[in-house]
């Protein structure tokens, strides 16, 4: 290990850990090593088998076992044993085999120290509050331990995010905030696991952990299934793009914009996920239309139009059979996606359809198509605002504009990512702006 590559923050934390262990060992009582080893081993195993949700900071079940250990040790062996035991069990929580194998020593040092110090703080808080009132060891002291753990844990993560990942404390806090209820939930569970241990002995642990391990395995399979489902949706998107290569990346962009709107409108994570799937699939109707008609340069004959319409009907029939696609029906059918003033709905299905319609139009305007070059973002925003309230849902329009401006992103002429090169250069303005009608040169100039 190259010590010079260890940053100062991690060295300071590790030193603090060893000082804390020394003080706890000298000042406090010796914990029972068998119980300590049992809990440390379980915490280590739990942490290394944890199923992590993608891109989120979570509070793991290891924390639950730490609180359980503190409860058991304080009750059965005296509060003087708690601080040292908590420090050592916390250190076990910070040891991740995967990170050790990757030889990311500074992360190893940080995890090891911050979990140990958080856990040690929990032990100290428990010892300090235990006996403060009759029955305090049952609820009050463990809750104090949970709070102390959360405060130290978060207090160390905030500067670490800034130092190592250039992430502002506010941004780190925003990541952590959704996980705060987990501290309470796992903390309460930890108290209960501890009480079960005290009631039934060590036998309680495997009885609790067997169902937990099976639930964990099922959850892991669930995550695998979600990945497979994402891939299946991706097959749809590829198929749509294979059918109409001039709209490459359109579905993904519409999905991204739709999530922007959903976030602005405070959709729940589950609603956001649903909205993303629906937006990815909003062009599914194209798959039912023969390629010859989809890419026909001129107007469709009445018979051809009938074919398109009937295929669309079948497509809608299919969509209604798939739970998560049902909300794409308005977008796919093009019947109800457009906002109608005075007939506004506020249910989630309608909001999804309104959001997708706005995003579809915005991406159509800011992408180069065979019939028209990409418009600038300013023109597209102006067009959306112009039709807001008559054709588009006003809140969705403002949410999209606000989200894009907040992120400082730019789309449209000069900022296109997937530029398709056409044999005949498309005109600067023209028809077909996602149902917006003809855009004239004057409109663009005046926007």
């Amino acid at each position, binding site marked *: 290990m190259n010590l010079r590559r260890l940053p100062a923050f991690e060295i300071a934390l590790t030193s603090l850990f060893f000082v804390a262990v020394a003080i706890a060992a000298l000042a406090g009582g010796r914990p029972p090593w068998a119980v300590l080893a049992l809990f440390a081993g379980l915490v280590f195993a739990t942490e290394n088998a944890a199923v992590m949700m993608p891109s989120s900071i979570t509070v793991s079940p290891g924390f639950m076992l730490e609180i359980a250990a503190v409860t058991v040790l304080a009750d059965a062996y005296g509060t003087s044993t708690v601080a040292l035991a908590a420090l050592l069990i916390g250190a076990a929580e910070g040891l991740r085999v995967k990170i050790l194998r990757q030889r990311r020593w500074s992360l190893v040092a940080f995890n090891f120290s911050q979990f140990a110090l958080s856990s040690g703080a929990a032990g100290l808080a428990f010892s300090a509050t235990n006996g403060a009132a009759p029955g305090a060891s049952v609820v009050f002291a463990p809750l104090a331990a949970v709070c102390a753990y959360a405060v130290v844990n978060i207090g160390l993560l905030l500067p670490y995010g800034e130092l190592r990942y250039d992430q502002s404390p506010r941004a780190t806090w925003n990541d952590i905030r959704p996980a705060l209820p987990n501290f309470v939930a796992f903390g309460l569970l930890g108290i209960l696991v501890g009480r079960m241990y005290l009631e039934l002995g060590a036998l309680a642990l495997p009885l*609790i952990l067997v169902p937990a391990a099976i639930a964990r395995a099922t959850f892991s399979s*669930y995550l695998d299934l979600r990945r497979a489902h994402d891939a299946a949706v991706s097959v749809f998107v590829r198929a749509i793009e294979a059918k109409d290569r001039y709209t490459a990346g359109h579905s993904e962009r519409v999905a991204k914009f739709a999530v922007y709107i959903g976030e602005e409108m405070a959709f729940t994570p589950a609603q956001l996920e649903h909205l993303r799937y629906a937006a990815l699939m909003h062009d599914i109707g194209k798959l039912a239309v023969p390629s010859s008609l989809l890419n026909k340069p001129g107007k469709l004959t009445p018979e051809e139009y009938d074919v398109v319409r009937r295929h669309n009907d079948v497509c809608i029939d299919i969509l209604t059979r798939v739970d998560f696609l049902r909300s794409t029906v308005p977008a796919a059918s093009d019947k109800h996606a457009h906002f109608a003033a005075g007939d506004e709905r506020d249910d989630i299905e309608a909001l999804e359809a309104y959001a997708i319609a706005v995003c579809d139009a915005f991406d159509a305007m800011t992408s180069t198509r065979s019939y028209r070059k990409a418009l600038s973002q300013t023109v597209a925003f102006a067009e959306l605002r112009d039709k807001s309230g008559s054709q588009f849902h006003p809140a969705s329009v403002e949410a999209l504009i606000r989200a894009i401006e907040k992120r400082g992103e730019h789309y449209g002429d000069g900022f296109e990512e997937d530029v398709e090169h056409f044999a005949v250069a498309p005109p600067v303005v023209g028809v077909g702006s996602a149902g917006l009608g003809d855009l004239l040169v004057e409109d663009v100039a005046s926007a």
Partner: protein
Amino acid sequence: MSATDVSLLVALGALVGVTLTLRIQLPRGGSIPMGHAVVIAVAFQLSFAPFVLVCASALTTALVVSGARGRNEWSGRDAVVAVLGMAAAGLAAVAVHRHLPVRGSDGWAQASLLGVMAIGSAHVTVDLALGRRSAAWSWRAAAPVYAALISSAALIAMATGWLLVFAALPLMITWYSFERYAAARRTYEQTIQALGIVPELAGHVAIGHGERTAAYARALAIAVELPPERREHVVIAARLHHVGHVAVPDCEETRPSIEDSLVATASAKILRVSGFLPEIADLVEALAAPDADDAILAILRVASAFDDLVGEAPDRARGALAILDGRAEGRAWSRVVDTLRSLVETDAAFVESAIAEGAPLTAAAAAAHTARATVAAGATA
């Protein structure tokens, strides 16, 4: 027993009855009642007479709740199996109570755990021996659920006071995790089905071909005893083997056949680029090579070709088998054709039920195809 005791036991029975109607869905089909754990725990906690009263109340409640939901979950046989399972648990509990040390004494917890396992084994054995099990039942999937049920039963049986509420939590977490998985699986399967229908909607493949092929492939996979995971791959590959049609330009399309290497290659490419299960992409790609013949490919080839020949007319089944026999001569998949023949001959409704599965589209589909044909005829004229 006082009237209050009886009332409490009846109420407890009602609670047990509700848990009997909650079923833990196994990943690849089949389910196990969550109430097994509660029955085992109650058998351990109570003496025989109160246990009988609780069971009577539980069964009544389960039948009423199940009936009110309008589901056909509890047949007469299920009720009989439940009664026998409860009787086995009750009798095992009587034997256990004779040997159990006093609560709180040394070794009580260990002895109790063994006792709960004995009661659980008696109850579960009856259920496994006499209960209904679907074709998709898998011991590998069921074993962890039984382990979770018996662990939870032990916790509930041994806990007292307010800890009793917490003791049920692991059981609830197990049930919830399987429910969540089952819901995700339903969505996934619907997506695969919808994906398989796309080339049919676009008129590249006969309507219902994917679903019918999947039905034949599933039956063949079960008949040749493929493991559940491979069985599932065969069914997904059967549904998606023609998805590549959408990527093949109209002018290059030849005929809707599984041997169309262009479509198979395009399908595999779409599946691979999308990061879909690599096993499925490999399977679909292997279909492009006419000489590649393993058991799974043979199932896919035979199922798809059989549907190409039979379509929606079950009376063509025998003729189709004769044609396949001729094609299979000297090839590795002749055994699969024999298996298919035995399935057709043993079950008179085999082809009809596959056709029913392959009819997910409404009259709109037929109308769409008629309109397409009219335009095509007009263009030719």
